[in-house]
């Protein structure tokens, strides 16, 4: 089995070095943009050393006259303009990024693929690295911290920590604003994406398999939990297989044509534009993590994820929904060799009044598993069963639980096996 060399994946992303990139940037960049795509791919391969690319640029293009070119013709601002942007320097300082991360790299994380399709000038590659790092750290932390969570809840929790909506909020909390429209003349400190450009040829997709049965015209395809674990992406969603020829604007129009109404305009545009904006902001956050990984290494990226993404509060207890909580609790007790659960009335008030309150506890033998108050005996019993099930699922070995990536540090203490649970009690779907 071939071993993946993760440290080499980002080698070509280190092209934008602080010193080497400043001087020849503008002509080389302009030239590279005009080149054909196949030439670009070749140049990426040849660029395991950044010097080779510079040589090409110096030989071919530096001899040309430095004629004034129109920046508005470029899809995104030139890298050397990053050094003059106050917004970019402020963002770099606000995030307390290491000086090892050049401003040019930070500027590149702000260019979405819909603004600039060139893979050497947009953030797709960095975002892919960042996405794998973020999702890995969130998933391993969740699985070690709450080892009994059912798989659908893990997916939802991962999505709530590092899905597009959450990362959008993270980007907004960093004070990142977006340009009205992308272009070579805009400030490099603004996030640049386009809602009107065609869907770019290379987009950020998660790890997962494209499945033909997920096409919109094929309904009622079997999609179980194990099936989703194997085939779908990190959030348990089917990988998007809408054809690339479709433009984003078409999608917007399709949305409106389905409803046969005018698009609903809110303060942030339509729902579709909001989605596109969320995706772009999330891609930017992922690209920042990718840039940190590329320039500062694994531990810095992990610390950054911990500080900005895992530090967010999520009430996991609110993610649960139960269909038959009493049956599920009885199944759990039978599986774990506990006594069958019995609901007992702990206290009550106002039984004959309009607003009675009953406090019901669920006992297994002599041990109380859950307790809840409700306006009727049945409601209190159901709620107590729900609480008991949540208490089972939300078991945690402690808030200082170690994760597998802690072992990658030099001189880490001996690994103690994490708690591994038997699995779900009742699997729905």
């Amino acid at each position: 089995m071939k071993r993946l060399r993760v440290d080499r994946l980002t080698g070509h992303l280190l092209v934008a070095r602080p010193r080497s990139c400043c001087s020849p940037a503008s002509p080389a960049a302009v030239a590279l943009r005009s080149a054909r795509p196949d030439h670009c791919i070749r140049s990426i391969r040849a660029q395991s050393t950044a010097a080779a690319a510079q040589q090409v640029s110096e030989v071919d293009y530096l001899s040309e006259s430095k004629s004034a070119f129109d920046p508005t013709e470029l899809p995104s601002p030139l890298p050397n303009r990053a050094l003059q942007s106050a917004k970019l320097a402020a963002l770099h300082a606000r995030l307390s990024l290491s000086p090892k991360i050049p401003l040019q790299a930070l500027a590149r994380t702000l260019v979405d693929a819909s603004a600039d399709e060139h893979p050497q000038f947009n953030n797709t590659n960095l975002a892919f690295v960042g996405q794998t790092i973020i999702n890995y750290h969130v998933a391993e932390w969740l699985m070690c911290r709450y080892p009994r969570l059912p798989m659908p809840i893990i997916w939802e929790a991962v999505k709530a920590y590092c899905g597009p909506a959450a990362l959008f909020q993270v980007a907004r909390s960093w004070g990142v604003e977006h340009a009205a429209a992308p272009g070579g003349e805009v400030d490099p400190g603004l996030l640049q994406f386009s809602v009107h450009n065609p869907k770019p040829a290379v987009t950020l997709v998660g790890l997962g398999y494209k499945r033909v049965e997920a096409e919109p015209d094929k309904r009622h395809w079997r999609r179980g939990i194990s099936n989703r674990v194997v085939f779908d992406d990190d959030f348990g969603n089917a990988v998007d297989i809408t054809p690339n020829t479709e433009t984003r604007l078409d999608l917007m129009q399709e949305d409106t044509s389905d409803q046969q109404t005018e698009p609903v305009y809110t303060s942030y545009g339509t729902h579709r534009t909001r989605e596109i904006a969320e995706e772009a902001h999330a891609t930017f956050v992922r690209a920042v993590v990718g840039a940190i990984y590329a320039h500062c290494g694994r531990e810095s990226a992990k610390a950054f994820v911990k500080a900005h993404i895992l530090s967010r509060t999520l009430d996991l207890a609110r993610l649960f929904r139960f269909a038959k909580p009493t049956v599920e609790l009885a199944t759990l007790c039978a599986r774990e060799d506990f006594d069958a659960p019995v609901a007992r009335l702990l206290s009550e008030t106002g039984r004959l009044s309009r607003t009675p309150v009953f406090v019901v506890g669920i006992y297994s033998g002599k041990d109380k598993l859950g307790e809840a108050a409700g306006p009727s005996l049945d409601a209190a019993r159901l709620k107590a069963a729900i609480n008991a099930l949540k208490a089972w699922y939300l078991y945690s070995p402690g808030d200082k639980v170690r994760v597998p990536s802690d072992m990658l540090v030099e001189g880490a203490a001996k690994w103690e096996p994490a708690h591994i649970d038997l699995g779900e009690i009742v699997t729905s779907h």
Partner: protein
Amino acid sequence: MEVQLTRRPVASCCRRLASSPLLGHRRPTILSPATAAAPSTTTPTQTRHKATASRTKRALNIAPHKSFLSPSSSNTTSQKSTHVIFNPPSAAPSVYHTPFKFLPKTDPRRRANLPANLFASSSTIQFSSTPTTTSASVTALPTVGPASPKKYHLTPEDVQQMRELRAADPVRNSVASLANRFGCSKLFVIFCCQSSPQHRDKIREAIAAEQARWGPRKMAAFQERARRRQMLLDGEL
């Protein structure tokens, strides 16, 4: 016909009004003519209320709950011992506190046998694993829900007979009557037998006809109950 005289209760806020004879005489004039004609036979009783600041202060001066008292403070009040007061307010228990029984075997909290030692003195939290107090009191609590425990007494032959009966005459052998006859729950009958689609359609139509007769308030109440139940299962209530 004799008019029963009833004395109005004295206004609780003013003691002087009740005890003063002058006001007591004047009072019937503003009541009904029947009371005005009859002589006042009952003597006004004196009730004490907290009309002064000192009495109010004294009434509000309640002794602290015994969980706030350290064992040493009862003996000598001057002695200040360092101890932890563990007296949470009465609130719904958090689902993040795993019950003792749900802790895995390898968990250090289980091994350390925390509840027996640490919270034994707490008056508000009673861990059910402490064997002395709860063994008798838990079983004494009234149970909620299905009255009888589940019996697993039906054989495959019984289930077969149940299916035949249900298929033969679904009206007479309704789910409730079959559950009564075989001594099982209605849910178990539904698990076992499925009636014909015609019968189900008929039942559905009957329910729809019944609901069509409901007024808007009854229908709203019905829908509200269903919504509340769904909210309960979703953890929103």
